[in-house]
C-alpha cells in the first residue's frame, strides 16, 4: 500500500511494523513531537504530526526544537491574545498548520488573523453548523487580499488541485480521503477515516493491507460521491459539486449557503493563479 499515507497513533511497535511507509502520527501531548520525529524517521517517512489538543493554540507547549517538523495542530481556539502574541515569533518559525473548527465567527475571524500573521490555517467544516457568509468573506480575503498571508485550507487545497478532468476532494486536508490516507490502529486494524476508527468500523488488518484497494467497501467509500448522481435531486445538480462532493448535503436544506461559497471557490480556482508563498507541506 505504498501509495497511501498511513495515519496512526504514536506506538513504537506499530511504527516499526510500518517500515518504509509514509506516516501521519497523531498525539495529544505536544511535547512528544521531537520523539515522534526521531522514531518515525528511523525507518519511515514523516508526512506530519497531528496534534489533537484540548488546549488553545496560545497554550500549546511548542518549542524551538520543533522547527522544521510538519505539525497539524487541532486546537479548539487561538486563546488569550497576550499569550498568543508572546508565542507568535516561535509559531511563525514552525512548520505549523493550525486546525480550527469553523464554529461561529470567532474562529473564522481568528483564522484570518493567523493567516495574516503568516501562520497556515485550516478550518474544519464538517460536522459543524457553518456561517456561510463569514466563510465567503474569509475566502475572498484569502484569494484577493493584497497583503502577503499564509494559506487557509481548504481553500488553498481546492485552488491548487482544481482540474478540468477530475473532482477535488478536500477531505485530504483532514487526512480523511481514502484515496490518499488510511487509518491504522495500534493493534493493526485499518479504517478508512478517523470517524470510522472512532466508531469501530474497520475493513482490514495490516497483514492484508495490500488487498484493501480491492475491498468493495473501500471502493464504495472511494466512489461515494457517485451516489449523489443516483438521487432524484440534490448535490449532483449543484454547479459546485465537483469541489464539494456533497459534504454538506445533510445541512443543505436547513442551512443553505454551501452552493454560493463553493461556486465562488470554483470561480476563484478558474481565475486565480496558484499563490506565491511558503508552502510548508501539503496534506
Amino acid at each position, binding site marked *: 500500500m505504498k501509495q497511501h499515507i498511513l495515519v496512526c497513533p504514536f506506538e513504537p511497535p506499530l511504527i516499526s511494523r510500518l517500515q518504509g511507509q509514509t506516516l501521519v502520527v497523531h498525539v495529544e501531548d505536544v511535547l512528544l513531537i521531537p520523539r515522534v520525529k526521531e522514531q518515525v524517521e528511523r525507518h519511515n517517512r514523516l508526512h506530519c504530526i497531528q496534534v489533537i489538543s484540548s488546549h488553545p493554540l496560545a497554550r500549546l507547549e511548542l518549542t524551538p526544537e520543533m522547527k522544521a517538523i510538519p505539525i497539524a495542530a487541532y486546537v479548539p481556539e487561538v486563546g488569550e491574545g497576550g499569550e498568543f502574541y508572546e508565542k507568535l515569533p516561535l509559531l511563525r518559525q514552525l512548520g505549523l498548520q493550525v486546525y480550527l473548527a469553523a464554529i461561529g465567527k470567532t474562529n473564522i475571524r481568528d483564522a484570518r488573523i493567523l493567516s495574516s500573521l503568516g501562520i497556515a490555517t485550516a478550518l474544519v467544516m464538517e460536522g459543524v453548523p457553518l456561517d456561510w457568509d463569514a466563510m465567503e468573506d474569509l475566502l475572498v480575503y484569502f484569494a484577493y487580499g493584497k497583503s502577503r498571508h499564509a494559506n487557509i485550507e481548504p481553500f488553498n487545497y481546492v485552488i491548487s488541485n482544481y482540474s*478540468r478532468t477530475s473532482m477535488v476532494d478536500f477531505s485530504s486536508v483532514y487526512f480523511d480521503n481514502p484515496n490518499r490516507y488510511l487509518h491504522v490502529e495500534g493493534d493493526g486494524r485499518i479504517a478508512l477515516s478517523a470517524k470510522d476508527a472512532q466508531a469501530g468500523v474497520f475493513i482490514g488488518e495490516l497483514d492484508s493491507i495490500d488487498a484493501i484497494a480491492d475491498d468493495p467497501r473501500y471502493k464504495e467509500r472511494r*466512489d461515494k460521491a457517485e451516489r449523489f448522481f*443516483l438521487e432524484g435531486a440534490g448535490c*449532483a*445538480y449543484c454547479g459546485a459539486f465537483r469541489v464539494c462532493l456533497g459534504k454538506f448535503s445533510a445541512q443543505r436544506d436547513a442551512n443553505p449557503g454551501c452552493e454560493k461559497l463553493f461556486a465562488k471557490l470554483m470561480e476563484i480556482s*478558474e481565475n486565480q493563479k496558484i499563490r506565491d508563498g511558503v508552502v510548508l507541506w501539503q496534506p
Partner: protein
Amino acid sequence: MPAETLDRVFTWINEYLETREGETINLVWHGGEPLLLGASYFRAALEIQRRRCGLNSGRISHSVQTNLTLLNTDFISIFKEMGITTLGTSFEPLPGIRGMGTRMDSKAYNEMFFKGLKLLRENNFGWGFIYVVTRRALTQPLTLFHYLLNLALGKGFAFNPVLIYGEDTHQLRITPKEYMEFLGALFPAWWAHRAWWPSVEPFTHYESLIVQKRARVGCADSGRCHTSHVYIGPEGELSRCGRAADWDIVWYGTIEDRSLRDVLSEDAHNKAFAQRNQVLRDGECRGCRFWDMCHGGCPLDSFAAHGDLQHKSEWCDAKRLFIEKYFEPVTGARFEGFSATN
C-alpha cells in the same frame, strides 16, 4: 444479424475498399442496444472481418453506441481487440423518461449505467454521452446542465433534441423554438467557462465553425450525407442512416442487390438527395448566410414533415435563431460563410 449475413457484409465492404484506395470505413454498432448481441458476437464479427477483409482490415474502424447497462469485462476485452478505446452512450438523470420495465425504474437502470461507467474508467476507456432534451428538461435547464457537467468532467457531451416520428405518447416532444431557448439558457455560462468546462455540443461545434472558422460540419448539415453514410439492417437491408431506418422512410434494397459503391454514388436513388441542395439554394434557403454550415439541415426532417426531401428542416430556424440571439451576441463573432474566408 445472422453470421452468414455478417459474413456477406464484410465481403461487401471489402469489395468497396478494394476499389477505393485510401478510403476508410467506420462501422458504428448501434441499436436498440448492441451489447444484447453478447461479447462472443463481436468476437465472431472481428474474425469474419479479418477473414474477409485481410489487409484491408486496417482501414476499418469500429464505434459502439451503448447504454452501458450490459457492459462487462468480456466486452472490454473484445472492444480493445477491435481497436475501440471510447464508447458513446447516452444518459437521462430525470426519472420516468428511461428505465427498466413497464414502471420505467430509472434508479435501477441508472445504477447499471454507473456500474458500466466504472468499468470504463477502470479500463482507461474514454466515453462521451448524448443528452436528449425532452419537454421535462425545459423547466430546469441550468440545474440539469450542472448535473451533466458534473457527470462529464473532462469528457464531452452533446445535446440533441428529442425527435419523435408519429404519436407522442409520453408528451416529450419539444418545438425547435423551445430547444433553441433551452440551449440559449445554457450557452452564456458555458462560454464564460469553456476553458475549464468540457466540450458541449452544439456549442463547441459552433465555436469551431463561427469563431475558429473551420469548415467542418456533421452529416445532417453537410448536404452530402448520401455519399458518406449507409445503414445496414439485421437482414442486410440498406437505408440512408439509422434514423431513416428507424422511421422506415428510405430504403435501398439489400447488400445482395447493390454494392456499397452504388449506394454511395450519385445515382437515381440518391438523386433526390443530390438535387436537394440546388432546390433549397434557389428556394427556401435563398440568401441565407448560414447555408454553408447548414445546407437546409437533415433531409429526413423534410421527409417527416412534407413527404419529400426538398424542404429545409424545421430545426433550421431554431439553429439560426440560437446563433443570432445567443451565440453571436455572446461571443462577438459573426458567421459570414466559408467562401468568404477560404
